[in-house]
C-alpha cells in the first residue's frame, strides 16, 4: 500500500488560536488599560504562542499501514503497524485502529500515542544515518500484550525484518527523515476473510499547537483460518481403495495388519517366512497381511444458511462456525491417516471445490477454502450446485444444520447414486429464537418439527444423520457402514 497523507497540511489547533488571541488581547489590554496584572496573566499564553510558532513543523508527513501477518488461525494475534515519515519538530504521533467485527484490539481502545524524541538541540532531525533507534517502550493500562503465533508457527513476539520489538512503539531513521512506527495488536476471534482496522493517524507539534491529520488509513484484509475442532475416530473408512493409507483393505496384500499364515508361493518375500510353522510342518509358510489402503473422503459443506449467534472462538458458535470447524477437524483427521480428502462447498461463491488429495499442505488448502466461505452468496439453483463426479468407493460426509431441506435432498440424491453418505448435523443444540414476535417463534418451532420429520425420512432411506459431538462422533456410523459395505446394494446410475 503506498503512503498516504502526503498532501495533508499542518493546521493550527484551537489551543494555538487560544494562545495567540488570548495572549495578544490580554497584553494589549494590559498596555492600553495600564494593568500589569493582565500582563502577568497574558504571559503564559504569550510564551506558549511564541514557542509554538517557532517550533512549527515545516514539511509534510506521510503514513502507511500494514498487517505483520495477513493470515492467522482463530484466536491468534498479529500487529497492525502504522509507519509515519516524520517531519522535523514532530513531537507526537497518534494512531487509532477502528473496531472490526470479531477482532480484538490491544490496547482495547485501539489507540497508540507515541512521543517522538528530538534528535538534536534545535528541533531538526539529524542527518546522521542511524539504522534503528528504539525510543519508547510501549505501555498501556493492561500491561504487555501476549502475541500468539501466526499461521506458519512463527512467534509474533520475535522481531520483524527491521529488528523492531513488539512494544508497540518505535522510531528509526531512514535517510534524513525519521520513521515512527506505532503498533496495535490485532487478535482474530473468528474464521473468515474480513477487512480489519480502518484506522486514523495524526501527529502533533509542541504544545499541541499544530496538527497533521487525522488521516484515514484504509482497512486491511485479514484471512483467518478456522481452528479445527477436536476430532478422532477409531473406525476405518468404509471403502478404502487407494494404495497408501492406514485403513485395512478387504484384500490381502503388502501391509501391516495380520491376515493369516499360508504356504509359501513364488513371489513371496523371504522376510515374510514364518519359521516356527515352517519348521514344524517341514514346508515353507509365510505370514500374510491385509494391504494398507487409503480412502477417499469428500466433505460437503452446507453454506446455504448460518443459524445462531457467533461470538468467535471460545464463545457461542453459530451453525456455520460448527460446520466449518467440524469440516476442518474431519479433514485433519483423515489426512493424518493418509486418506485423500476433497471438499465441496454449497451455497458460496468463489472457490467452492478442493479436489481430493493428501498431505499437510492439502490440509492448509482445505482450511484456506473454508475460510473464504460467504454464507448464502451462490445465486445458482440448489440442484446445480453439487457436482461431485465420484466413484462408489468415496465416502461423502455432509456437514449441515439441515435447516434447508435442500441439503437433505442432496444427501438422498448422492446415496441413490451409490455413494456412502454420512450427514453431520451442526445445528447448535442450545439454539433459541430471541424474536419477540409470537408468529416468528411459532414458525421456527414448525420448521424444527418439519426438520425432525425430514431427518427421520432420510435415516429411513439408509443415510445416517449424527449430531456433531467432537471426538467419536462418527465411530459407530463408520463401523455400521463398514459392515454394510459388503452387502449388495441397488443404486441408480
Amino acid at each position: 500500500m503506498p503512503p498516504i497523507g502526503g498532501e495533508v497540511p499542518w493546521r493550527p489547533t484551537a489551543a494555538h488560536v487560544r494562545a495567540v488571541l488570548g495572549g495578544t488581547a490580554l497584553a494589549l489590554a494590559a498596555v492600553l488599560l495600564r494593568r500589569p496584572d493582565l500582563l502577568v496573566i497574558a504571559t503564559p499564553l504569550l510564551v506558549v504562542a511564541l514557542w509554538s510558532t517557532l517550533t512549527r513543523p515545516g514539511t509534510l508527513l506521510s503514513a502507511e499501514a500494514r498487517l505483520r501477518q495477513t493470515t492467522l488461525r482463530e484466536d491468534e494475534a498479529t500487529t497492525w503497524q502504522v509507519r509515519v515519515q516524520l517531519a522535523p519538530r514532530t513531537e507526537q504521533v497518534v494512531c487509532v485502529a477502528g473496531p472490526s467485527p470479531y477482532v480484538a484490539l490491544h490496547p482495547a481502545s485501539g489507540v497508540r500515542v507515541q512521543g517522538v524524541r528530538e534528535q538534536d538541540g534545535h528541533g531538526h532531525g539529524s542527518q546522521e544515518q542511524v539504522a534503528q533507534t528504539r525510543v519508547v517502550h510501549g505501555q498501556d493500562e493492561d500491561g504487555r500484550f501476549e502475541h500468539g503465533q501466526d499461521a506458519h508457527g512463527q512467534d509474533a513476539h520475535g522481531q520483524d525484518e527491521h529488528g523492531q520489538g513488539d512494544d508497540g512503539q518505535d522510531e528509526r531513521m531512514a535517510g534524513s527523515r525519521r520513521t515512527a512506527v506505532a503498533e496495535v495488536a490485532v487478535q482474530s476471534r473468528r474464521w473468515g476473510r474480513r477487512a480489519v482496522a480502518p484506522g486514523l493517524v495524526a501527529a502533533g507539534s509542541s504544545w499541541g499547537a499544530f496538527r497533521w491529520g487525522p488521516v484515514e488509513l484504509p482497512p486491511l484484509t485479514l484471512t483467518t483460518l478456522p481452528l479445527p475442532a477436536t476430532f478422532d475416530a477409531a473406525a476405518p473408512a468404509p471403502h478404502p481403495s487407494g494404495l497408501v493409507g492406514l485403513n485395512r483393505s478387504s484384500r490381502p496384500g503388502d501391509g501391516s495388519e495380520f491376515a493369516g499364515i499360508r504356504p509359501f508361493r513364488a513371489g513371496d518375500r523371504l522376510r515374510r517366512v514364518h519359521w516356527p510353522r515352517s519348521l514344524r510342518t517341514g514346508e515353507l509358510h509365510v505370514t500374510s497381511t491385509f494391504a494398507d489402503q487409503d480412502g477417499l473422503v469428500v466433505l460437503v459443506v452446507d453454506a446455504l444458511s448460518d443459524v445462531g449467534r457467533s461470538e468467535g472462538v471460545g464463545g457461542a458458535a453459530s451453525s456455520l462456525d460448527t460446520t466449518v470447524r467440524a469440516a476442518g477437524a474431519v479433514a485433519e483427521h483423515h489426512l493424518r491417516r493418509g486418506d485423500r480428502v476433497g471438499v465441496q462447498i454449497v451455497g458460496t461463491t468463489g472457490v467452492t471445490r478442493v479436489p481430493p488429495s493428501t498431505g499437510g499442505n492439502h490440509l492448509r488448502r482445505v482450511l484456506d477454502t473454508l475460510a473464504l466461505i460467504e454464507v448464502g452468496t451462490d445465486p445458482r439453483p440448489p440442484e446445480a450446485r453439487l457436482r461431485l463426479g465420484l466413484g462408489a468407493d468415496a465416502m461423502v460426509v455432509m456437514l449441515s444444520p439441515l435447516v434447508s431441506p435442500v441439503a437433505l435432498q442432496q444427501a438422498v440424491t448422492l446415496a441413490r447414486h451409490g455413494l456412502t453418505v454420512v450427514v453431520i448435523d451442526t445445528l447448535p443444540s442450545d439454539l433459541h429464537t430471541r424474536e419477540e414476535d409470537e408468529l416468528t417463534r411459532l414458525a421456527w418451532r414448525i420448521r424444527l418439527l418439519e426438520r425432525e420429520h425430514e431427518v427421520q425420512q432420510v435415516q429411513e432411506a439408509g443415510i445416517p444423520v449424527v449430531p456433531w459431538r467432537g471426538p467419536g462422533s462418527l465411530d459407530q456410523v463408520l463401523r455400521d457402514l463398514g459392515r454394510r459395505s459388503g452387502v449388495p446394494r441397488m443404486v441408480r446410475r
Partner: protein
Amino acid sequence: MSASTRAGRVADELTLLSGHQRVLRLLVCLTPPAVLGCALLAGAPFAWWVLVVVVALGLLCVAAPDSHAVLLTLAFLAWRWLADVADPRTPWVVPAALAVLVLHTAAAASAGVPGSAVLDPLIRQRWLRRTAVVALATVGVWGVTAAAGTLQPAPSAVATLAAVALVASVAEILRRSGR
C-alpha cells in the same frame, strides 16, 4: 445530530476516558474556579451568577477541550478580573496566571489525543517540564511588574512594549533550553 444525541455521545466519551485523560479533564474543570477564587482573594466581590457561569464554562471545556470553549472561558475570566479586581499589583495574580497556564496546557494536551489514549512517559515528562519553564517565566514577569510598581516609573507605552519584546526573547531562550 440532535442535542440529546450529542449529549449522550459526550457522556459516553467521558465514561471511556483513560486515567491520564481524567486527570487532564479534572484540571480543566478545576482551574476556572481557581482563577475566580484568586480574584475573590484579590478583593473581588462574590457573585453567584459569576460562579455558575464559570462552573458551566469549565464543564463545557471538559466536554470539548478541542474547541474554542476554553478561549471563551479565558475571555470571561479576564473580563471578570478586569472588572472586579481593583488592585493591579495584587500578588494573587500569580496563582491566577498559573491556573490559566494549567488550564491552557491541560486542555491542549487533552485535545491532542483521543479520550481513551494513554500518554507515554516521554510525552508526560515533556509537558510537565515545559509547563514548569513557562510557570517560572510567568513568575519572573510578575517580579518585573512588581519591581516596576515599587520603583514607580512614569507611565510609558514604549516601556511596556519593550517589556513584551523582552518576554518574547526570554521565551525563545527558554524554548531552546527547556526541551
